[in-house]
C-alpha cells in the first residue's frame, strides 16, 4: 500500500497488528508521547486481512527491548514487533505477556500500600487466558477489565 511506504522508517521499531483503537494506549504505555528526537507515527483503523481493522505504530530511531514491548501484550495481545534496520525488518517477534509486570500498572485496591507510599508497582501473572494478575504488595487479584482500567 502506497501510503504506508511513505511512512517507512530507516531505523526503529514498527508495532503492527494492534487491535484498532488501541494504538494510542500503546504509545502511552511505552511513554512515547514525549518527543524523543525521532518520528513517531500512528496509523489507525488500517485495513487488515487478519484483524479486519488494526492500528500500527512506528517509532523512528528507537529500538524497544523485548521486555518493554511485552508490556503492550496486556492491551494488544495480537501485536507483532518489527525491528527495522536500514529500511529492512531485521528482527520480528510476537508480543508475549511477561511473568512479572513492573511499573506500568496501578493496583485497583484503594487500600493497597502501593497507592499510598513510594513503590514501583509489581504484579505476577497468575493466568494469561483469561488474563489475571496478582499484586506483589496487597496480593489481590485483578482481572482483564480492571487491568485495562488501571494501565
Amino acid at each position: 500500500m502506497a501510503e504506508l511506504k511513505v511512512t517507512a522508517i530507516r531505523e526503529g521499531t514498527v508495532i503492527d497488528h494492534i487491535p484498532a483503537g488501541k494504538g494510542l494506549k500503546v504509545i502511552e504505555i511505552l511513554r512515547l508521547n514525549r518527543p524523543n528526537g525521532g518520528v513517531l507515527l500512528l496509523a489507525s483503523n488500517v485495513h487488515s486481512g487478519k484483524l479486519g481493522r488494526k492500528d500500527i505504530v512506528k517509532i523512528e530511531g528507537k529500538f524497544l527491548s523485548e521486555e518493554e514491548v511485552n508490556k503492550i501484550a496486556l492491551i494488544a495481545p495480537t501485536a507483532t514487533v518489527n525491528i527495522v534496520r536500514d529500511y529492512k525488518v531485521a528482527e520480528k517477534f510476537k508480543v508475549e505477556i511477561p511473568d512479572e509486570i513492573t511499573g506500568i500498572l496501578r493496583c485497583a485496591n484503594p487500600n493497597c500500600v502501593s497507592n499510598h507510599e513510594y513503590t514501583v508497582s509489581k504484579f505476577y501473572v497468575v493466568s494469561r487466558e483469561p488474563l489475571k494478575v496478582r499484586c506483589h504488595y496487597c496480593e489481590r487479584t485483578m482481572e482483564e477489565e480492571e487491568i485495562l482500567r488501571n494501565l
Partner: protein
Amino acid sequence: MDWKGRDVISVRDFSKEDIEFVLKVAERLETELNEKGALDYARGKILATLFFEPSTRTRLSFESAMHRLGGSVIGFSSASSTSVKKGESLADTIKTVEQYSDVIVIRHSMEGAARLAAEVADIPVINAGDGSNQHPTQTLLDLYTIKRAFGRIDGLTIGLLGDLKYGRTVHSLAEALAFYDVELYLISPELLRMPKHIIEELQEKGVRIHETTDLEGTIPELDVLYVTRIQRERFPDEQEYLKVKGSYQVNCSVLKNAKETLKVMHPLPRVDEIHPEVDRTEHALYFRQVFSGVPVRMALLGLTLGVLEGV
C-alpha cells in the same frame, strides 16, 4: 533450613516443609520452656513492635514471646504517637527503627505494608496483620494448635464457620490446610460464602470441600470446628451486616451431637458466636490456641534472628 534474616509476610511464601519446620521448632521451645521456665536464646537482641494500627492481643503475644526467648522489646502501639502523624513515610520509619533493633514486627491498616517494610529493611520483618490481607503468624499458631491437640493434621475433618467471605483468618488457614490431607466443611450464611477463587484453588490442590449453611447437621462429622466472628467493620453495607449478624451460635445444645473429641477453635475476640458455657467443656480449645501464639512466635523470632541453631 536457613531462616536467618528471612521475612514472614504471607502464607503464600511458605512451603509445607517451612510450616512443618516452624511447628516442630515451636514444639521444642514449648517443651524447653516448660522444663526451664525461661530461655535466653535471644539475649541482647531487640524486637521492635510497630503497631500502626492497635491490636493489643497480638502485640502482647509477640512481646511475651520475645521476653520468653530472653530478648527485649521496644515499639509503639498506635500511629498517633509517632512521626507518621507528621507525615513521615512508612519506608523512612522502618529505616529509622531498624537502627535500633534486630527484628521488626509490623501491623498496619494498609494491605501490602508488611511487604513494603520487608523490602526496605535489612533486618527480618514479621507481618502481624496488614489490613484485610495476611496475618501469617495467626495461621501458623492455628495449625500448631491443631497439631498439638490431635498429634497430626492429616486425616482430619475441619469445619470453618461464620464469615468466610471477608474473614482473613479463614482464608489463610484454608490455604495452609491445602498442604494437608484434610476434608473441609465451609459453613456460612449464603451471603458470606467463601470466595469462589479460593474454593477452586483448594479443590485444585485436592482438598475435599463441602459448602453448607447447616451447622447442626454438620457438627457430627467434624474433628475441628473453627469459629469466626462476623465483623461489622468488614461489611461495605450495614444492611447486609444486619441480615447475617448472629447467624450462628455454638452452645452446648448445638454440640450435643458432636464427637466427644471435637475441638472448637476461635481466633478471638468473640462476641456471641460461642456461648461461655462451652468454655468449661472438653471441646473448648480457644484459650489453648491463644497460648500457642507464644511458642510459635518464639520460633519465628528465634529462627529469623538466627539464634536457634542449637534447638
